[in-house]
């Protein structure tokens, strides 16, 4: 099956039904391996054992942003190319991205209390991440408010494109402003500042979380296609009755 064939919802459903068991199994294996490496990682010389929260916090933050980036590309697909699966992908990604962003905020607070002495501070990184979470809630509310999927898709696509401005703000907030949150330590010019015994488990957990995201995204897209079929069938039923 060519990638272009997946643009057809029926072919996408066939692909999803075949791929999901394998993706689910790969996710379980990746988490088992990643967690075993994370639990075996040494304590940080400054933070001690609380560095283990990083193995959840950082992948959750990455995926919260990745989901919005995916929604941004899908929104272009909706507005410019009117791709049949673009708004399905955007709608499916919103709750998943919101959940990962919430997880990032919660684990960040639980990490901040022992390290900074506070659960929350209104610094640029934390605030821009909170704004991302609120944007997700806005998108979800918008999808639920507008009944016609094609109208909802266009409105959500515009809000998504506007909200994409928050992504570089989150990324560079630690460089542009003086924040309590630490600067970039994984993806930065000059290489990572994290020692490999901690960096490798972090990357393994990031792979596991990414596999989880892909699995959930495909499953949620399958659900959305089925939901639209139910809507079409109900419209057919209503027109047959009238």
């Amino acid at each position, binding site marked *: 099956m060519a990638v272009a064939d997946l643009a057809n919802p029926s072919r996408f459903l066939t692909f999803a039904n075949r791929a999901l068991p394998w993706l689910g199994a790969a996710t379980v294996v990746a988490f088992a391996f990643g967690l075993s490496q994370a639990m075996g990682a040494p304590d940080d010389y400054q933070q001690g054992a*609380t560095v283990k*929260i990083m193995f959840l*916090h950082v992948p959750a933050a990455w995926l919260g942003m990745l989901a919005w980036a995916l929604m941004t590309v899908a929104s272009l697909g909706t507005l410019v190319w009117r791709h049949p699966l673009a708004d399905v992908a955007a709608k499916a990604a919103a709750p998943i991205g919101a959940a990962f962003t919430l997880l990032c905020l919660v*684990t960040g607070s639980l990490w901040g209390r022992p390290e900074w002495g506070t659960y929350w501070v209104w610094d640029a990184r934390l605030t821009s991440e909170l704004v991302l979470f609120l944007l997700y809630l806005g998108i979800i509310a918008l999808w639920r408010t507008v009944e016609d999927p094609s109208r909802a898709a266009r409105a959500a696509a515009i809000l998504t494109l506007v909200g994409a401005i928050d992504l570089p703000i989150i990324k560079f907030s630690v460089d542009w402003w003086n924040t309590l949150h630490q600067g970039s330590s994984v993806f930065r010019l000059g290489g990572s500042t994290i020692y490999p015994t901690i960096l490798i488990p972090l990357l393994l957990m990031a792979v596991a979380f990414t596999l989880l995201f892909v699995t959930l995204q495909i499953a949620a897209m399958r*659900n959305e296609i089925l939901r639209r*079929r*139910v809507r079409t069938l109900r419209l*057919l*039923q209503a027109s047959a009755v009238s």
Partner: protein
Amino acid sequence: MAVTEHFGFIIAAYAAAFAVVALLIAWVALDYRVQRRHIAELEMRGITRRSAPVRAEPALRTGEQA
């Protein structure tokens, strides 16, 4: 910094992650079952995607040309 000193924060973070992931998986799985059930119910009533609804043509009145 000893493990026991901030053990509660680490446990709480992993518990939160487990809860969020479990809720996501449950939401996707339940939604799939609900949509499949709706489609099955509609198909049982004879409503299928490829079948166009058959509309009864209005009967011609006496003297009316077809």
